[in-house]
């Protein structure tokens, strides 16, 4: 039971990690409280759904959906999000809530509200190890998330653009002074953050129901994770995301499945009360 719940939790945590990484990047880099972030997760799932049906192949469908996500991200950064950098929090929150409502309802009109799942390419037979029981899509989701996070880590840590990204993240003015084009870095950051969230949608949509309101629930979790981790900590957010997945899984197994969505907020409230700068945050940062 325990191991089974732990593994389920890590799979859910993979999804949370992908959403939260993007959220941290956008929040930390552009200081935008982005309520529309969950909508990219939702849109990623719906586009994957439609393209998988169109091409009759999950992998092609997923990749095409990601290309669409990238284009949407670039467009929305250039047109709207770029203007929100450094705007006060009330303005950015209200505008991104507006974007969120707009996208959610547009998807509802175009695709309809009835819940569905993305057709998955694997055999129905689960993998059984001892008394643990894992379906193949879950294994695929877990390892794909690890690969995406790994690539992201490599990019940020070792490439020149990745270093420029970190430099802008840590001190924008210094980045300007050494000749980094920070507008390019912003577009790049938003695109990465949004697309990674879209990927989470395209992956988790295989094991969960996709519906237009899924983004709202996701963005709440993403916020809880980012604030718990300490706002500017990308790796902290990943760690907390997996942790939250496990806690929710254990909590719904041992305590109550109806209230599994509450755990994130209880943790958040405790963190804000006792360590308001976040678990991995720095005081005064």
């Amino acid at each position, binding site marked *: 039971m325990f191991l089974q719940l732990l593994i389920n939790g890590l799979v859910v945590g993979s999804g949370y990690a992908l959403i939260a990484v993007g959220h941290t990047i956008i929040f930390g880099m552009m200081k935008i409280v982005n309520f529309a972030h969950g909508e990219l997760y939702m849109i990623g799932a719906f586009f994957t759904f439609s393209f998988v049906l169109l091409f009759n192949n999950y992998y092609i469908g997923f990749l095409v959906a990601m290309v669409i996500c990238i284009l949407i991200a670039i467009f929305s950064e250039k047109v709207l999000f770029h203007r929100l950098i450094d705007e006060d929090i009330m303005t950015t929150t209200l505008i991104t*809530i507006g974007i969120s409502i*707009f996208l959610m309802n547009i998807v509802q009109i175009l695709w309809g509200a009835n819940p569905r799942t993305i057709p998955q390419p694997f055999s129905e037979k689960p993998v059984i190890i001892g008394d643990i029981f894992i379906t193949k899509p879950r294994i695929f989701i877990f390892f794909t998330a690890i690969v995406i996070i790994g690539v992201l880590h490599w990019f940020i840590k070792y490439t020149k653009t990745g270093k420029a990204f970190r430099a802008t993240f840590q001190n924008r003015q210094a980045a300007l002074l050494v000749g980094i084009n920070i507008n390019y870095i912003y577009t790049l950051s938003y695109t990465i953050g949004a697309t990674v969230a879209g990927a989470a949608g395209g992956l988790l949509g295989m094991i969960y129901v996709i519906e237009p309101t899924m983004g709202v629930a996701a963005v709440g979790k993403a916020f809880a994770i980012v604030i718990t981790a300490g706002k500017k900590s990308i790796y902290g957010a990943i760690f907390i995301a997996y942790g939250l997945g496990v806690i929710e899984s254990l909590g719904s197994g041992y305590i109550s499945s109806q209230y599994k969505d509450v755990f994130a*907020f209880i943790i958040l409230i405790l963190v804000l009360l006792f360590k308001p700068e976040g678990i991995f945050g720095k005081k005064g940062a």
Partner: protein
Amino acid sequence: MNINSNIKYIIGILLLILLPFLINNEYLLHLLIMGGIYTLLVSGLNLIVGYIGQLSLCHPAFFGIGAYTTGLLFKRLSTPFLLNFLLAGIITAIISIGFGYITLRVRGSAFIIMTVSFLHIMHLLVLNEVDFTMGQKGISGIPNINILGYNFNTKTSYYYLILILCLFTLFIIYRLVNSEIGRAWKAIRDNENLAKSIGINVFKFSNFAFVSGAFIAGLAGSIYAYYINYISPDLFLFSITTTLLVMLIMGGKGTILGPVIGAIIFTLLPEYLRFISEWRMPVFGVILILGILFFPRGLFSIKEILSMKMKKKEVSS
């Protein structure tokens, strides 16, 4: 307030009193009653958003708590209206004190997230504690209001009740905003650190605004339960938050009459745009975005913007 504007207000109030005789349309009267309930909600939300400058997204939760307090008191104990009405306000206020005590220590994004979470948790509780709240089914069969034998069984009677409640609430808010308390609120909104440095207890004043707003929402919820005779967990949906925000922003936050204008316009408008019914929410989304971008101080500011442009022209010519 000079005599001239006093007369304007008196004429306005007289018009509102005569309105039911003038329109003679049950459905329009119903919309006006809903507009009145929204006026109460948005005016309460305005205290924390417009005067303190903290964005609260959980206002529908207080409305819902008021409605459920009323519904449950009636269902379980069959207590009379006045008691239920007052208890709805008081219990909502007590819950908001507890919540505000924890969350108003933080500002900005953390506060915003806590309020969304609170709304979400309340929704889950009402949905899942079926034995207590009747879950998704909701509570039906709440009777009409009965005060000392007088039965509110017409739309007109509810209209006057809401009208009195709105006028009274707006008057209290007007007095509050123009008192020492209101000045402290605005000082906090404009510069929290400065407010702190001149000895304003930011936490206490923020809490007071927050709890006052919640108290009004609780009362509104109670009236709503009696008026519609039915309540459900849908009262705790985020879409209501959105509607309230559109009303507040477009009406003009941080003003007394802005919430009234916003509430009335955005109660009536969607009903008369029925043909776009499924596009209502996306349109609200766009209105919110454009409203913030172009009219950050509400539709009223159109007049200001226009007159400013005129002045500029005069100066340049």
